[in-house]
């Protein structure tokens, strides 16, 4: 059986033009059903299974087994915690279940740093699924998740369009969409938007992202490695081309996931909103990888501030907000992976948010007459954009490659 699965072809999500042809053909009956006001749940389960199977067969079969084990683990945790929460609400049990839900991810992230090879527990998408599971447990604690069953939770976790790289949806939002069928007008509007996103995604990922990633970036990387000093014009080239590649590649991917969700009658959240228009770093995090940063905002930042304020851990409000920013962004760095450059990326963004907040306060208090016009806005956007590009260079890991090559 395993040999047979290992010999099958593997289709990573949204990888090739043919993938889109198969996928759209497969979801066409669903679309027709939705148009006539019906959701063919069994058919959706079937094609989701087939496409997820194709992502995790062939060479990736071990990941497929890890995925199955992981989903069973998280489903048991969520269902058991939900059952427990009906009759009791101890903080200790809540923290225990939250910890248990993120333990597989912690092991997967720590293993490469500790023993130098990837953990067997890992599979593509585990980071994203962990947010969904932990988020569901947190909202269950708050008494917000009332209507849940193992099947509904699995449907949420394994929603095929967003399985491997998000956007990260929330259980309550997802099930509200999933349990109803949009009206015909609403569905047609979704399809209309979806088609636009799909083509915008093609432009982003397969044209612009491809050019930056496959054409300019390798060229600059090659010349940057030949320079005697780390900071060179070639390195500047790596910085901008990598940053733009990262945006167009990831935003393109997210657009595909959102578009396919829309075709399936589920309004998955958008992940990007013109991030390079941001006037400061706070605004940037409202526009960049939105489903991730909002997850951290709602489940880490706000909950930490809430707890710290209630327990009066801090005398000074600004000390509290700075601590919360640092905690939030450093954790996000760790989530990307246990390497110095991911962690530094998180810390630098934490410091930037602290500085940004300080500047906004200072400006309001001491510089009320500071001019505000097109020029100052332009300067703000320029500074933000370039700062972000520097942090993406750190994030890329290329500085590590450079250092190792010397």
């Amino acid at each position, binding site marked *: 059986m395993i040999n047979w699965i290992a010999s099958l072809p593997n289709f990573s999500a949204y990888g090739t033009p043919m993938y889109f042809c198969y996928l759209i053909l497969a979801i066409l009956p669903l679309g027709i059903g939705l148009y006539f006001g019906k959701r063919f749940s069994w058919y959706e389960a079937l094609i989701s299974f087939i496409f997820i199977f194709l992502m995790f067969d062939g060479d990736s079969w071990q990941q497929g087994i890890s995925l199955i084990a992981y989903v069973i683990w998280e489903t048991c945790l969520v269902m058991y915690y939900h059952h427990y929460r009906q009759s009791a609400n101890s903080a200790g049990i809540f923290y225990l279940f939250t910890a248990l839900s993120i333990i597989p991810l912690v092991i997967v992230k720590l293993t490469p740093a500790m023993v130098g090879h990837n953990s067997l527990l890992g599979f593509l998408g585990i980071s994203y699924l962990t947010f969904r599971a932990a988020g569901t447990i*947190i*909202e269950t604690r*708050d*008494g*917000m998740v009332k209507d849940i069953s193992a099947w509904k939770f699995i449907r949420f976790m394994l929603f095929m369009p967003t399985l491997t790289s998000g956007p990260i949806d929330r259980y309550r939002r997802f099930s509200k969409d999933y349990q109803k069928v949009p009206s015909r007008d609403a569905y047609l509007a979704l399809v209309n938007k979806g088609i636009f996103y799909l083509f915008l995604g093609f432009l982003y990922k397969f044209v612009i992202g491809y050019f930056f990633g496959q054409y300019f970036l390798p060229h600059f990387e090659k010349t940057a490695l030949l320079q005697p000093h780390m900071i060179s014009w070639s390195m500047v080239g790596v910085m901008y081309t990598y940053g733009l590649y990262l945006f167009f590649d990831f935003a393109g991917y997210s657009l595909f996931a959102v578009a396919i969700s829309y075709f399936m009658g589920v309004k998955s959240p958008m992940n990007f909103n013109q991030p390079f228009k941001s006037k400061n770093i*706070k605004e940037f995090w409202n526009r960049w990888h939105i489903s991730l940063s909002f997850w951290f*905002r*709602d*489940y880490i*930042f*706000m*909950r930490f*501030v*809430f707890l710290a*304020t*209630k327990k009066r851990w801090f005398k000074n*409000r600004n000390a*509290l*907000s700075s601590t*919360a920013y640092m905690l939030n962004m450093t954790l996000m760095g760790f989530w990307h992976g246990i390497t110095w450059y991911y962690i530094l990326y998180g810390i630098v963004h934490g410091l930037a948010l602290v500085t940004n*907040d300080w500047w906004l*306060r200072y400006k309001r208090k001491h510089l009320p007459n500071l001019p505000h016009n097109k020029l100052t806005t332009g300067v703000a956007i320029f500074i933000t954009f370039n700062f972000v590009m520097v942090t993406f260079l750190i994030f890329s890991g290329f500085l590590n490659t450079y250092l190792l090559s010397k």
Partner: protein
Amino acid sequence: MQEQIINILADATGRDASDFSDASQDLFTSGLLDSMATVSLLLGLQDAFDIQVPVSEFDRSQWNTIEKIEQRVKELQNA
């Protein structure tokens, strides 16, 4: 009630009550409320109106104007 909410908002954001004269303006897009001030707002509302507002109850689109805050508080008081 609106006056009380405005005082809580002014407290939470460290601004003057006069910044909140428009009860229908979007508090988030106008930059008056950020995540930090939101938590102070929630805690202030809990104390003032004796309601429970879990953080995950807080959907920004339902709390983004003074009018909506007032409406939500009344709903939670009656819940």
